[in-house]
C-alpha cells in the first residue's frame, strides 16, 4: 500500500504542477505559480495589503508618483536645452551682426 500511496501522491503532484499553490519549504512560506495561473490577494474596499510594515498601496502610489515626476523631469530636460539653445543662438546672431 506504500506504493499505492506514492503513486497517488505522484499523480497528485503532476496535477499540482499546473496549479498555483501555497507551500511550506523548510519553514519558508512560498506562493507559487507555474503555468498561466495566478495567485491573487483581494481585500474589500477598506482593507489593506501589508508587507511587513509597508502598506502596498502606499508603495504603489509612490512608484506611480515617481514615474509621473520622471515624465515631467524628462520633458523639462528636453524643453530647457531647447529654450537655452534658442537664446544662445540669438546672442550669437547679435554678435555676428556687430
Amino acid at each position, binding site marked *: 500500500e506504500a506504493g499505492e500511496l506514492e503513486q497517488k501522491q505522484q499523480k497528485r503532484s503532476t496535477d499540482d504542477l499546473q496549479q498555483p499553490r*501555497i*507551500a511550506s519549504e523548510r*519553514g519558508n*512560506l512560498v506562493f507559487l505559480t507555474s503555468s498561466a495561473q495566478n495567485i491573487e490577494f483581494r481585500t474589500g474596499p477598506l482593507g489593506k495589503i501589508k508587507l511587513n510594515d509597508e502598506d502596498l498601496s502606499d508603495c504603489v502610489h509612490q512608484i506611480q508618483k515617481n514615474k509621473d515626476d520622471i515624465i515631467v523631469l524628462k520633458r523639462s530636460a528636453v524643453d530647457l536645452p531647447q529654450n537655452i539653445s534658442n537664446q544662445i543662438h540669438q546672442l550669437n546672431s547679435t554678435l555676428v551682426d556687430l
Partner: protein
Amino acid sequence: AYKFWVPNTGFDTPANWNQNRTPCVGGAVQFPADKMVSVLVQESHAISDMLLPLDGELALASGAGFSAADPGSDPDCSPDAPALFRNPDRFSWLDPRLWRSEEARGFFSVDAERVPCRHDDVVFPPDGAFRVGLGPGARPLRVRSVSALGQTFVRDEDLAAFLASRSGRLHFHGPGALSVGSEACADRSGCVCGHAEALPWLCAALLQPLGGRCPQAACRDALRPEGQCCDLCGAIVSLTHSAAFDLQRYRARLRDAFLALPQYQELQVAVSRVPRRSRLRQADTEIQVVLAESGLETGVAGRLARALVADAAEHGEALGVLSATLRESGAPVRGDS
C-alpha cells in the same frame, strides 16, 4: 506521573471532519467561523474553496500546502457538501477518554485517575495541534506542570501569561482555571489523585456519548471502585497500610508474582491510593486494588483477590500491609435478560 493529551486538531486527521474523511480534491472546506483553533497541515491539499475561522491559524508543516483545484476534479467529491471541520471546542480536560498515561501491561487507571491528578505532569502534543476546554470552572484544575508548545510551565504566573497570549487562547478555552506548581508525589505509599469532588463532571464527560448512562454490567452485584464511573465485574482488594508500604514495589510484585501467571493474563489491574470508602475519618486513605475481568470467564478475579489477601497475611509486615479485605462481584448475567 506523566499524562498525555490525545486528541489533535490536525487537518489530516479524518475524525476532525464531519464526514470522517479529509477534504477531497477539488472539495470545499469550512471551519467554524467563531471557534479559535490552531490546525496543523501536514500534507498537500487541492481545494476549491476554504472558509477560515475569524480567529485561528493553519500551521504548515514542511511540504504541506494548498493548491487551487476547481470543483468537479474528483467525481467522488461533491462541491455541494463542504467538508466541515468539527467543532474544536468539543474536547474537555475533564474527559478521561482524552488522556493517555504510560501503563505497564495488564494495568489500568480508574476513571478519575485517567485525568491528570494533582501531582501529575501534563504533556500536550508538541506539534501544537490541540485545543482543550478547561471545564466549567467549578474548581481550578491543579497539576504539577504543563508542557505545551515547547515550554514547560511550573509557575502559575508563567502559565497565566501564556494562557492570556494569543497562542494560549488558540489552545485553551472555557471558564475553567488551570493552575500548576503542586509538589510531585513524595510519599512512597502513593498520593490520592484529588478528583473526588470533580468525579461527577469527569463521569458526565466520559458517559456523554452513551447518553449519560452507564452500560449494564455483565454480572450480578457489580462493583463500583472508588474513582470509577460505572460498575464493573471482578474483585476489589482494599489494603490498609503502614508507612513502610511502597506502591511501586507492590505494583512490581503484582506484575511479577501474579499477573505473569498464565491464568491471570486476561485481568486488568488498577492499584492506587484512594480516600477510604468508610470515611470514618476525613483524611483516611487506603490502597485500592481493582481486578477487572475483561473476558467471559468469571471467578478469575476472585481467585487472584484471595491470593492477594493470603499474600498480605503471609508477608504483611515486609510489605507494609496491615489488613486486607476483598469484595467480589456475582455470577454473570446473560446478555438477553
